[in-house]
């Protein structure tokens, strides 16, 4: 449980330093400028090629948007990166390590954590319990430690730390008043916040957000964006899959456009906006 060297003096007035005490980030990755590198990624479902040779790199501390029309292969790409699907070809590297085809928990363990398109809360657990599941490598996750009397004391100490962190993170996202509410009673937007908050407690280096703004009302969308920007300023890297082109264009410094399983183009929002292919893809023309 080494403390985190990378914390880039948190902005926004929220004290996040205590938040990082349980961090277990690997040493090697911290210096890599390109945390995520995808090359030649392929995925077939039966005869359909969902992802066809996708290649891109994500810069450290950046916010990248992945857009494309329905069925472009965005979510499949996501799933292949995070281990939900096993890619049929290609290579995914995270912090210089090959993570192709690893199980989702192994990918998450390396600091690459995803959220889901439809917020998936752990319904019959309270918001606080949802949060407390997330921190990695908890001592009390070992069966014997949670049962044996003496060992349980050390579990309790760590539980106290985790509890404090969970409360702080809930406060950061302004959902601390819901802490003891069952997650299934939350509104759609609150679930999105919970999911992002929960993902943060795993001490990720990079977050993959799958349509974080879908079904979220404009004021909450504003809040979510604020949080994401704040976190980005603290050094987190983001890759966001989104349907809403304008939202991505306004908030990301780099945009990747997918169409029919391939990368159509990538670049700054300006470049992409003026790209003929993109316009055609979105307006339904043949490419």
């Amino acid at each position, binding site marked *: 449980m080494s403390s985190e060297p990378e914390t880039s003096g948190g902005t926004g007035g929220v004290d996040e330093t205590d938040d990082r005490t349980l961090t277990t980030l690997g040493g090697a990755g911290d210096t890599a400028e390109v945390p995520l590198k995808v090359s030649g990624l392929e995925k077939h479902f039966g005869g359909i090629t969902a992802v066809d040779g996708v290649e891109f790199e994500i810069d450290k501390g950046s916010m990248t948007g992945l857009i494309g029309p329905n069925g472009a292969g965005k979510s499949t790409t996501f799933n292949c990166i995070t281990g939900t699907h096993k890619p049929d070809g290609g290579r995914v590297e995270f912090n210089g390590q090959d993570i192709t085809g690893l199980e989702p928990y192994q990918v*998450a363990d390396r600091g690459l954590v995803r959220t889901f398109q439809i917020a998936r809360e752990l319904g019959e*657990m*309270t918001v606080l319990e949802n949060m*407390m599941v*997330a921190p990695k490598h908890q001592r009390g*996750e070992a069966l014997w430690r949670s049962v044996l009397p003496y060992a349980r004391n050390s579990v*309790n100490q760590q539980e106290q730390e985790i509890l404090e962190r969970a409360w702080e993170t809930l406060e950061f996202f302004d959902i601390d008043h819901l802490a*003891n509410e069952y997650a299934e009673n939350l509104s759609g937007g609150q679930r999105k916040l919970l999911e992002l908050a929960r993902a943060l407690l795993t001490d990720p280096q990079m977050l993959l957000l799958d349509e974080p703004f879908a079904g979220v009302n404009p004021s909450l969308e504003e809040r979510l964006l604020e949080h994401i920007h704040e976190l980005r300023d603290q050094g987190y890297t983001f890759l966001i899959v989104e349907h809403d082109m304008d939202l991505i264009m306004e908030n990301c410094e780099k945009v990747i456009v997918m169409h029919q399983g391939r990368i159509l183009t990538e670049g700054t929002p300006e470049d992409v906006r003026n790209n003929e292919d993109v316009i055609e893809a979105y307006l339904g023309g043949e490419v």
Partner: protein
Amino acid sequence: MSDDESGGEYGQSTEEQRAVVMGIDFRNDGLMLLTMLLGIYIIYLLAGLVIGFPFRGLMNQIGQLTFWIAVFAMASLALNLHWGYTGLFNIGIVGFMATGVYVTGILSKPVFGSGTSAAEIGGFGLPLWIGIIGGTVAAGLLGLIAALPALRLRADYLAIVTIALSEIVRFSLLSDSLSGHEIAGYRVGLGGGDGVILDYQDPLESLIRALSAPFDLILGEQGWLWNDVYLGIVVDFVANFIPNNPKPVVDNFAYSAVLLLILGGFYVVIRRMGNSPFGRVLKAIREDEDVTNALGKNTNMFKIKSFVVGCALMGLVGILWFGTQGSVTPNTFRPRITFYIWIALIIGGAGSNSGSVMGGAVFAAFLFQGPRYFKNVIETALGNPEAPSSFGQAMLPVSNGDVVPFLLYTLDSIRQLQLFMMGVVLIVLMHRRPDGMLGHRKEPASSIPLTRPIKRSGGGDTVATDGGETDE
């Protein structure tokens, strides 16, 4: 009897009112459980005393009741770890029980030829405690074998695998080719259809003799606790009330009391597992395995651990349940027992440990032992009347307005009607109270109280809450 039960349910007021109370004070679950147990015993005693049930019979019944409450509560707790916490749909419980008790029997039975009948197979003649540990471990191993392929499948496939496994176990026990063999000089086997005679030392006696060891050392005697205290004082005292052969009654009682203590141990262990980061991950798996996996938890590993531990505990329950019955035959272990335990868990409320115990108690008292006791009591009160032997003979007098033969016939068939009653209770429960009596799932998924921390108060209060009894 079923009236008593619905009465008990009414007494708990509505879910909302209760939830508010529970939110503040979790100990109410425990209180409710104790009240319920007390109520059950009072009903049993009153019913027996009012009607003038003979003392010996009454004592026997109370001992039996305690036995059933303990075994069903323990089995429900083990199942709660699978289903209530992890969401693993295990309907092969009885297979793990059979494995436990058979392995214990084979390990601890006297060696073949040392006085056993020629037709019987022998055992390894190991001390009983080794047999019990061996049986428990064997049940856990069987769980592991089932878990490795099956837990990768979806929940309903696990159900198929487990029920099939329990039948495979039963048919293996029945099989002739495994019934007896020469292994390393010992003639051992599963006994085929004849089953296995469990002629190891009486578990109660060996326990008391083992506990006696320190006293023996001081007093320089052999089995002081058993000979002088148990036989000399306790049994002698009871002989004042039951002059004729009191020992079996006392044995029955004492063994049930031991089971209650073990039940206490079960409860503490399973609650500790549940109220911890380990239990939290199990709960998370129950809610959404993919999410838990995406949060960096090796969900397969957690599921295997939960499954194996639960199976081992089921094996132990099997040993405690069937190990004192003198012998076991394969056909005792039909899936019916599995479903009894499921009913007990559903009554109590899956996901709640106190609910599991309560479900076990209610099932044992009102659905399992209750109807038989009821029949006993009524028959004693009526002076053991002759019941009609067929449905026709029972129905014929009804047309003349005489319903007594019909009622007697019904009473006589109460064992068959029991299953029907269980079905009715299950259906009513599913409609009215799918969460069971205490299935509100408010057991905290942490080893510490989840209140808002008062910035860094130090570790002192954390240690204080570790008592295990205080934090619910």
